[in-house]
């Protein structure tokens, strides 16, 4: 496995733990379909939450959340519908969250959780 994928994996695990700690229930991760991939799927109360996780080692190339573009958010909404259809989830409230993580390997990772970005 490439180093960058490893970093992404550990970032997503970290994000899942973080969300569970903050009262959300993670019900799926790394769900793939021909249209793309969802990092995490969670439930926050009745709301279905699609979570995009971005992990970086430093802010040298900008904040991880800056990498979440409008096109990406649009795709996530499409994927949310596909995910709900496959899992026969009755869609109530849909929300897209973004989690930015900085892991420089020296200090404790910083986690930045933005709710309802799309």
């Amino acid at each position, binding site marked *: 496995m490439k180093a960058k994928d490893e970093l992404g994996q550990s970032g997503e695990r970290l994000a899942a733990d973080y969300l569970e700690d903050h009262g959300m229930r993670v019900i799926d991760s790394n769900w793939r379909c021909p249209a793309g991939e969802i990092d995490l799927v969670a439930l926050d109360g009745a709301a279905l939450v699609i979570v995009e996780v971005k992990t970086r080692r430093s*802010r040298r190339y900008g*904040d991880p*959340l*800056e990498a*979440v573009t409008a096109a990406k*958010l649009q795709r996530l909404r499409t994927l949310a519908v596909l995910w709900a259809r496959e899992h026969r989830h009755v869609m109530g409230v849909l929300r897209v969250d*973004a989690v*930015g993580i900085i892991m420089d390997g020296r200090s404790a990772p910083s986690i*930045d959780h*933005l*709710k*309802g*970005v799309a």
Partner: protein
Amino acid sequence: MGMGRALAVALVGLNGHVIEVEADIGQTLPAFVLLGLPDASLSEAKERIRSAAQNSGIPLSRRKITVNLVPASLPKKGSGFDLAIVMAALNAAGDVRRTGGTVFLAELGLDGRLRPVRGVLPAVLAAISAGCQEFVVAQANLAEAELVAGARVRGYDSLAQVAADFDADPEHLVFSPADLTGTAGGGAPRLAAADGPAGDTALADLSEVAGQGEARLALEIAAAGGHHLMMMGPPGSGKTMLAERLPGLLPELTDEEALEVTAIHSLDTTKSGITALVRRPPYERPHHSASTASIIGGGSGIPRPGAASRAHRGVLFLDEAPEFDKRVLDALRQPLESGELVLHRAAGTAAYPARFQLVLAANPCPCGKATGKGIACECTAMARRRYFGKLSGPLLDRVDIQLQVNRVQLSQLSDTGQRETSAQVAVRVQMARAIQAQRLRPFGLVHNADLSGRILRGPLRLGGKETHLLDRAMGAGTLSARGYDRVLRLAWTVADLQGRDTPGADDVGLALTLRQRGEGL
């Protein structure tokens, strides 16, 4: 988190408007939105600001920052808003305290240093009259901003220093962007600009002019009464030399005038910076190939001032006047009339003061040889007519003194006797100005040149004994009604220079000789 505010100034021409910069931080993905009609260079502020803040150790919020420049309907341009925007954004994030009534005027470098901007003087003037008193500028603009009475100005080298003064946490601040002492906006050699455009005429002294007794007198009268002057003569007769010496005869600018002039020069893109008020009357001599926009002002967006405005309260010298584009010459009629240039463009209207003293120089004909009997002249009659046809009647109507300048004789050139210096003449000019100012105050005027025919033939009417010569010339058809008024204006200035209360017949006679039109005109 939440809202942040800071003040800046938007210049439309010389008029400043205090702009409130609002910054709001929203809980969404990182972005920077700039609202309020920014132009291209102002839109680029987003990128400059992010880098500058990052490199100063106080990164901007990693959320969506929305900045609004109020009033949003006023078009804004340039980089002078950088500091105000970053301070508003930092204030919104709680990184610095509220900035209150402080006005920020500086551009940011990517490393966080503050760079000087143009137009600081008019901006500070406008903000003061709008009730602001505290200013933060780049170090290189400090001297200029401090010229305004009542302004409390602080100059800084870097964003970190400004932030520290507004209670940012000093622990993370990066104070010295790489070699800050280096070229902070060309900080060092700024002294030369202090004497401004008069610098090149400061060395020109009247004592260097050999002979030319009549021209020297005309120059003195022009300086004393603020009369426009036209010199006609063959090449090499010293027209340019004489014109260059006119600013040296004019009195120093008053405080108010100096602020006006310095404000215009503060907008000038060719000057490096201003450290002192321009005290000497400016001198502008555009080349005859100059475009209309370069003389009266222009450019895309909000028009910038041209040579006529840069010559405000000074001298505008048009050498080879008939070679200028006719449109350029005619465009000068508005400022000659109103002392102001109002430039209308789609993006807005700018008004620049342009109360200059006009000096025109012309050869007697296109080839320049039509002097004396004019035997050597190669020009056709048509060419000569066309040459002076450019100088329209309405323009020349405003030129009180029309003088023939002849070549200097060898005997005059080698005469090394004591000649009057500019300083000596300037003393007489100063006295004459004081006398006329007192007489003209009831009419709301300053110079004899501004006297209208209504006043000249009304409250200031001369007796028949004094105007005898004029009446005869007019009767003979050699003097028009306008010419009559012009001679009267000159006569008053001649009398002022002599210290007489009212012009005598001699003064009128001398005035009459100063408006002889040259051959061909």
